[in-house]
């Protein structure tokens, strides 16, 4: 419940912890991160300079979708258990999707009809 805005009357959640807000809605979904990681190195864009993000958005961890203030903090993050667990998940099989759910329910692959471009 730390993700809510601080309110004076409630002693317990006086501060809004970024850690909790991140888990709530800031972080990217697993499948989005997985797709991003599948892309080859050349296709990845250079990190844009954003003054609203920590360290101008230059120190980024792709696996955990987090920005860091500088190189040392980021490298420190790479050593943490959280990060290593996350890397392990991302190296594993593709995250569950709606298509997987449909196939598991006993449906066939979606039928999109003949491709229009191939006919011409």
């Amino acid at each position: 419940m730390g993700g809510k805005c601080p309110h004076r009357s409630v002693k317990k959640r006086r501060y809004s912890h970024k850690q909790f807000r991140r888990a709530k809605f800031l972080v990217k979904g697993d499948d989005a991160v997985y797709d991003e990681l599948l892309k080859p190195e050349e296709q990845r864009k250079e990190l844009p300079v954003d003054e609203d993000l920590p360290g101008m958005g230059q120190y980024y961890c792709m696996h955990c979708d987090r920005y860091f203030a500088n190189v040392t903090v980021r490298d420190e993050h790479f050593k943490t258990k959280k990060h290593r667990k996350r890397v392990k998940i991302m190296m594993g099989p593709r995250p569950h999707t709606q298509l997987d759910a449909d196939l598991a329910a006993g449906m066939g692959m979606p039928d999109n009809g003949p491709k229009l471009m191939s006919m011409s």
Partner: protein
Amino acid sequence: MRLEKCWFCSSTVYPGHGIQFVRNDAKIFRFCRSKCHKNFKMKRNPRKVKWTKAYRRLHGKDMTQDSTFEFERKRNRPERYDRNVTENTLKAIKKIDKIRVDREERHIAKRMKGNKAKEQREATKELEQSIHMVKAPSVLFKEPSLTLPTKVKVLQKQSEENRMEE
């Protein structure tokens, strides 16, 4: 009208049921009930939760490859309405469903086939290993310490009553 499948447990979501979540990258997640929605929010992986279809499929609990699965699919192209086709489809649905249910039953029967023999084997083994714990009924009468005192009384009473009836 489309009957979508639940993202988490793969059950059918009927109109007026469940909840839908649209992520800020426009991906749609449908859930059949709050149980599935909550499990999604907890970031659980359906492949690791035992009651989902995804788990059962992956671990060979359910039938995986079958020709009856080819009929129900998402068709992303318009179909011109034809009364005869609709009628035939409705007829076929019943038949296909029956075949599918029969095959599923057979699959489960096949999966459970070895269980009875296995149980029998285990029971025999247990009997062999711990036969020393079983006492002959005559020994129980000789040594009252082996049985609970109250139980003996009840047994005797019952046997007396039985005799009376006879």
